[in-house]
């Protein structure tokens, strides 16, 4: 490298240094440190002590908390297809050329801009088994409502229900993608005598499959990190039925002073997410269509 080139590189690095320093100190260093700490007994107030694989070992045999927390998190994947289908269905409905469609779009999008914490608090009231909106309606129809967040069986479905209320965020992305589907394809389908459903199945969905793929990947990652709603609404209860992975990780790290265990959990979660994302990526070759792609 010539002297002037070196100078240019140096100058460039200096310009990006605010980001670079931030990345090194606040992202890369913690990531590496957590990897090291996951092999130690680190009680935060005392220096870490090397214990090898002990944290990982005690986690994978923990049938009381760790494994149930993983299964409970996986249960929440039920939400994924539901939110994909509902988001897409809403987007298709709101893609019609109607008077005042912008108003409808706004109405359905509105819930997704409510901060998660506020909507969680709001839904605690909606789902309240005694005075809540849902159970009051059910009661007026003489249907005994479940105890929702106060019932180990209904707490997870209640959270899925709440999250579907915020499906507008995904909907807006689909809606944008729908605008990009070439009308020529629909015209061709019309000429071939395709009905409405066939047009959706063979034109719309393949055309917007990259966007479905994007929402799916984000959904997979988000579900593994499911935290805020539970932290606000149930804090893991009742009977640990909503003690999701991220909540249990948080408790270990910040309430029980078991930072080593928490770091090990974080790395296990990273590996699981990596594998799950990889599987989705691999499968995408079969169903995601990119325009201009040759096979």
């Amino acid at each position, binding site marked *: 490298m010539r002297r002037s080139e070196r100078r240019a590189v140096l100058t460039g690095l200096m310009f990006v240094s*605010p980001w670079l320093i931030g990345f090194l100190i606040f992202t890369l260093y913690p990531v590496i440190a957590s990897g090291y700490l996951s092999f130690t007994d680190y009680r*935060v*107030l005392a220096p870490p002590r090397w214990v090898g694989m002990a944290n990982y070992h005690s986690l994978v045999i923990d049938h009381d908390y760790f494994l149930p927390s993983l299964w409970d998190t996986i249960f929440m994947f039920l939400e994924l297809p539901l939110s994909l289908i509902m988001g897409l269905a809403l987007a298709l409905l709101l893609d019609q050329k109607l008077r005042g469609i912008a108003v409808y779009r706004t109405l359905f999008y509105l819930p997704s801009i409510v901060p998660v914490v506020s909507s969680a608090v709001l839904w605690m009231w909606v789902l309240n*088994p005694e005075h809540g909106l849902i159970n009051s309606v059910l009661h007026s129809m003489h249907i005994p409502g479940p*105890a929702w967040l106060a019932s180990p069986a209904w707490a997870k479905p209640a959270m899925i229900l709440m999250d579907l209320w915020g499906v507008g965020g995904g909907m807006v992305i689909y809606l944008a993608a729908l605008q990009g589907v070439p009308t020529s394809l629909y015209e061709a389908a019309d000429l071939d005598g395709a009905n409405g459903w066939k047009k959706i199945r063979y034109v719309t969905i393949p055309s917007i499959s990259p966007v479905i793929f994007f929402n799916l990947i984000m959904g997979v990652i988000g579900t593994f990190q499911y935290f805020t709603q539970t932290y606000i609404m149930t804090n893991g209860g009742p*009977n640990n039925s909503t003690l999701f992975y991220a909540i249990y990780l948080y408790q270990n790290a910040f*309430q*029980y*002073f078991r930072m080593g265990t928490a770091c090990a959990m974080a790395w296990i979660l990273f590996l699981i997410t990596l594998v799950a994302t990889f599987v989705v990526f691999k499968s995408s070759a079969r169903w995601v269509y990119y325009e201009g792609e040759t096979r």
Partner: protein
Amino acid sequence: MTKMQFLRLLCAALAIVPLAGCGDGRSTSDAGVVHLQVWSMWSGDEERSFEAVLAEYHKEHPGVVVDNLGAVTDEKSVRAIIAGAPPDLFTITDPSYLGTLAANNALEPLDGQFEAAGFKDQDFTPGALDECRYQGRLYAMPYLMDCIALLYNKDVFKDAGLDPNKPPRTYDELVEDCRKITRRDAEGRLTRIGLHPVEISPALLMSMFDGRFIDERGRITADDPNNIEGVTAYMRLMDAQGGYPAVQSFASGFGANTGAFNPFFHGDVGMLISGEWNAYTAFRYSPGTHYGVVALPYPGNHPNRAGLVWLADNPFCIPRGSKHAREAWEFLKWTQTPLAQKMLASTLHNVPNLRSELHDKDLIADPPFVAKSPKDVDPNSWRPLYGKFLALADSPTATGFPTMPVASMYAKELSNVYDSVGYGTKKPAEALAAIDVRVQREMDKYQ
């Protein structure tokens, strides 16, 4: 200066500017005045009460200004200690943190100062110092405390056909009274229950049954037979009120216990196991309702538990690395004076930890009050109930959760017991044995 040189200089300057803000702005001593940094748990009205006390301290000690930071959580204090930037003095909200901090050598031991100040154990409210000690050494000083006992709503008792002047003394009487207080609507849904189920923690209940959490050798004893008996008895109490799931569902409709929405003040529950502050909040949020308080009911086969109350301190700790440990101790010493105890107790409505203050007329007397108009309310009418709490606190059987390094995890594990037994996941003995194994495993790391 070329343009390039100028830009480099600018970048360097921008990188340095934020660092300048990181200097030590705390614990400054200017012109001989020491600024003592205290982080406290109190917020809102309580914070103002505490700050009034600090102003009084400054009046008596012009050389020291106590700077209070309110609404500090335990997590924040712990993080500051780890980061090596602790305050000079801080409160612990959840007493279970004390053992963890002490076991990890994060707190200054105070035994020497305690002795030098001439304090004697017997001058303190029974149990007040237990929560401040870990393995026999003193790591905190209480500044007031909470006394948890059984509150009952006399009007609800009357409505349920019970004698409002005969609150339950034994556990069996508690179960029976709860059964009689419980009401349902036409469709069988609960509309009123006997005892608020939230505040009666498994640890408190187990101590009612003379249970033990740790033995003399430091072994965890979660599955002590008396603990198992306690959990079994709790399910009996729930069954008397419609069963555990039904009570949980009903209770999830309750508002927060701290304010006007406390279901106890609305007669949705007949009894509440809670602390002395309720004397004042009841007066504030439901004046005109009649309340009483008694010691926690004791099981017939454990008569030695009669007169039991559950205690929890407001502990103040001096962290290792406190820049003004000496001044911090001087302040703590002052909090143990009758004036300091009385001043905060009368505004915070907590229990004095100085035994002599428990019977102080200034705190508990309800002077005669003449209403000038029908709207006038006797501003001291909460004091008799508060005085009963103070009398109950002076009890030889007062107890609390033992200090140990794993107390926080242990308490959380215990708090899950009701759910796992109540929803039928586990039998009491089985649930407690599992806790025993898990907590012991953590405890072993400290041996």
